[in-house]
């Protein structure tokens, strides 16, 4: 796998393609964010760039847009090799980009915002007229004098698009454009993009929403772990086959390498429901799950479907519902604080290392105290902290879990992501918790550290603990999990034995196949978030 569909750079330059990226490699330290990536875009084509989080989509796009320089490889514009030094150079070539996060000033109106991106001598009156013309022509209704603060997300995106269109781009890059749109706004956007394509403009469309890609795109390049793993015609593929390409066809859907005899249930979620915390949160709806001694259970799902909410509810950082909703080691813990849950034998590793799992400005030994101040008798006595004991624990953890650091007790922020993750995981494993809940255990971690962390989780389960892993990485899940459940829009599927699951089935679950449209009306008052 990982080989390229296209021919290598030796072929004669043709002008059939608007943009060719040949053998692009981008290294960040030891990590290859892009590894010999080749991409070809023809005029008038809507080309999808597909991949999971961290597959290297953003890196590739940033190279094309000039905000990053490749370590190796070349870009060719209309058959001619070009070096794109910065975004201004990209715009001069005719490349426009609409970012996921808009760069608009809320206190200014539409024309003023657009004028900011144009040369200083632009006439505002002319511009106003041009904006009206372009927005009418492409079906992007926009009032030039409207204040940005008053506009919806969809309208704000239109400003960004119009801003690109005014420069008459030949290639328009859209980064996850529908992530923030309502279905109706998305439909409107598709019409605009189709119209642009008809006029000969190429569109590079980044997404992981497979149905959209199937509907809109003529061609798709699929990235996985920095490599091109396929170039396909999305119209001829099914959502399931695209998903398999995205998550990797080489995944063994069996976890046969170890046997376990599950013991008693150590972590039980019993009709756990929780309202969303604020407008961007996800509600948890009637979640049931058992994790038994000696097994690793994984929760798969696309980011933002309630994973961090579920983690907070199990850890007790946000308590709600009833005492029985979360049971740790046969004790009703739903109303316990996180400290009480730790005393009861649970350990937690959150997704964010810096600022959640560890305090950036404190030393590692102080960060030991962070989660272990109340359950290790040696660390605090009648309100006083024993720093020597913290330093000793830190030495043990950094040795056992191979945490590489420049000095004996550095600040957490000075460690690399992988080393800090080993520290944060090691800090909990060192306590030999009966229940370990871990969110995205190897997110942004190099392969060596990831292997160490995965092995440590399996070892913990073999020693008789219950391990719950929340992860977006299906490779990882199949590597370590005995049973797999899928979370989608705050609803958790049944946990299936890993051997019984295929990628297609997981893909369907990720898309919400198990969701109840109307959560049953018996008692609990869940709300499904939109």
């Amino acid at each position, binding site marked *: 796998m990982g080989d390229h569909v296209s021919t290598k750079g030796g072929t004669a330059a043709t002008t059939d393609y608007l943009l060719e990226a040949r053998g692009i490699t981008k290294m960040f330290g030891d990590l290859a964010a892009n590894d010999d990536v080749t991409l070809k875009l023809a005029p008038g084509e809507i080309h999808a760039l597909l991949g999971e989080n961290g597959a290297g989509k953003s890196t590739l796009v940033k190279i094309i847009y000039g905000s990053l320089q490749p370590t190796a490889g070349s870009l060719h514009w209309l058959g001619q090799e070009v070096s794109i030094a910065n975004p201004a150079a990209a715009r001069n070539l005719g490349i426009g980009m609409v970012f996921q996060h808009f760069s608009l000033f809320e206190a200014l109106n539409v024309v003023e915002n657009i004028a900011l991106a144009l040369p200083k001598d632009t006439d505002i009156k002319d511009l106003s007229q041009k904006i009206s013309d372009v927005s009418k022509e492409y079906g992007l209704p926009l009032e030039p004098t409207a204040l940005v603060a008053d506009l919806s997300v969809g309208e704000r995106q239109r400003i960004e698009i119009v801003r690109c269109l005014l420069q008459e781009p030949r290639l328009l890059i859209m980064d996850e454009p529908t992530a923030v749109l309502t279905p109706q706004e998305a439909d409107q956007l598709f019409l605009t993009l189709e119209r642009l394509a008809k006029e000969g403009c190429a569109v590079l469309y980044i997404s992981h929403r497979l149905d959209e890609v199937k509907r809109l795109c003529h061609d798709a390049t699929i990235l996985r772990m920095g490599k091109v793993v396929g170039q396909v015609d999305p119209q001829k593929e099914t959502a399931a086959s695209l998903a398999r390409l995205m998550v990797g066809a080489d995944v063994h859907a069996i976890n046969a390498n170890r046997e376990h005899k599950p013991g008693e249930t150590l972590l039980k979620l019993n009709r756990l429901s929780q309202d969303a915390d604020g407008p961007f949160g996800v509600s948890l709806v009637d979640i049931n799950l058992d994790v038994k001694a000696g097994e690793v259970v994984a929760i798969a799902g696309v980011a933002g479907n309630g994973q961090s909410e579920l983690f907070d509810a199990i*850890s007790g950082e946000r308590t709600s519902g009833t005492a029985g909703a979360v049971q740790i080691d046969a004790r009703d813990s739903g109303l316990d*604080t996180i400290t009480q849950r730790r005393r009861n034998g649970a350990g937690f590793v959150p997704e964010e290392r810096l600022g*959640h799992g560890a*305090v950036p*400005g404190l030393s590692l030994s102080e960060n030991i105290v*962070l*989660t272990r101040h109340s359950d290790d008798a040696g660390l605090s006595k009648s*309100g006083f902290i024993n720093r020597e004991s913290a330093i000793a624990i830190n030495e043990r953890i950094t040795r056992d879990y191979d945490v590489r650091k420049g000095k004996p007790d550095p600040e957490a922020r000075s460690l690399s992501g992988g080393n800090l993750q080993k520290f944060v995981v090691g800090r909990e494993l060192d306590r030999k918790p009966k229940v370990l809940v871990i969110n995205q255990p190897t997110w942004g971690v190099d392969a060596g550290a990831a292997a160490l962390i995965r092995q440590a989780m399996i070892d913990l389960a073999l020693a008789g603990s219950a391990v719950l892993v929340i992860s977006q990485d299906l490779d990882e899940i199949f590597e370590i999990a005995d049973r797999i459940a899928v979370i989608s829009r705050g609803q958790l599927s049944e946990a299936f034995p890993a051997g019984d699951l295929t990628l297609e089935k997981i893909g369907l679950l990720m898309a919400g196949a198990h969701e109840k449209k109307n959560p049953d009306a018996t008692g609990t008052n869940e709300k499904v978030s939109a």
Partner: protein
Amino acid sequence: MKLVLEKRSEHSEFMTLMSPLLAIALTVLTGAIIFAVQGLNPFEALYVYFIEPLTSMWSLEEVFVKAAPLILIGAGLSVCYMANVWNIGAEGQLTMGAIVGSIVPIVFTSWQSPLALVAMITLGALGGALYAAIPAFLKNRFNANEILTSLMMVYIAQLFLDWVVRGPWKDPKGFNFPQSIAFEGWQLLPTLGDGRVHIGIILAVIVVAILTVLMSRTLKGFEILVIGNSPRAGRFAGFSRKKVVWFCLLLSGGLAGIAGIGEVAGPSGQLQPTISPGYGFTAIIVAFLGRLNPIGVLFAGVMLAITYIGGEAAQIDLGVSDKTAQVFQGILLFFILACDTLILYRIKMLGSTKQQSVAAE
């Protein structure tokens, strides 16, 4: 050539110590320029300001009299600011502490025992703490910004004091001056040496010692540090941000209250419409100059006390405005905050090669 700030991987211990010294040096330099512009000899002026207060016994004593409230308040504020709780209203808490503590000498004038003094100090602390409890409640309940609420409450406290000394608590034999009766005997702080210095400075040193242990050795201090650094990690550690808000505001309010009763039972010996030359605000500078570290606050309190004395001396000797001292304090805070940037960042010069690639845009 272009200067950029580059983030350090860790905070710099060296710059943590150097930043306040650098700030003082820059303040002195700026002060010299200001004096020179006013047509004064800058060397003479700086001497009057910063050295002369240390040359006579009288002014040295006066430095300690003024340092005591600055250290008491500054130490409390440094704990507050460590937790990212921005109590700006210590001046109001000082005023309320003075008023509540004065209940003993004004209402129970005949109670003459050491216990009366203990009661005054306790009530002073209580008055300041309860007054600081209002912004704490508003912050925890409504997420109201404590910077605004605590600051606005300063003016309420000051107007209340003004009313009290012109109304109910006015000395009946005071020829209609807006002031209370003069406190006497055990209702005044005992003094040291020949009269001006009172035990407030000893109290301040004890408080510094206790807060040093609190912040460096105890779980409570650790909790304050974590919540201030990273509230999300604090929640993960099982610490409550709301409790920390309560603790910090009650502590710093209480200490400001003690400073307040210390002023009226010490140097002034009675309630007057104005009881503090802005100690509650100057203590903010003390806290920062002292690196939000109680021991550092001890030195910073003495340093800022010197600017008060120097300001008075300069007014007499050089004929400059009494506001000059405040200008100095403001400039000092400005430079400390600016220099603190260097703790987490270093200044780097970008050479001309980078410049060209930027210009190519």
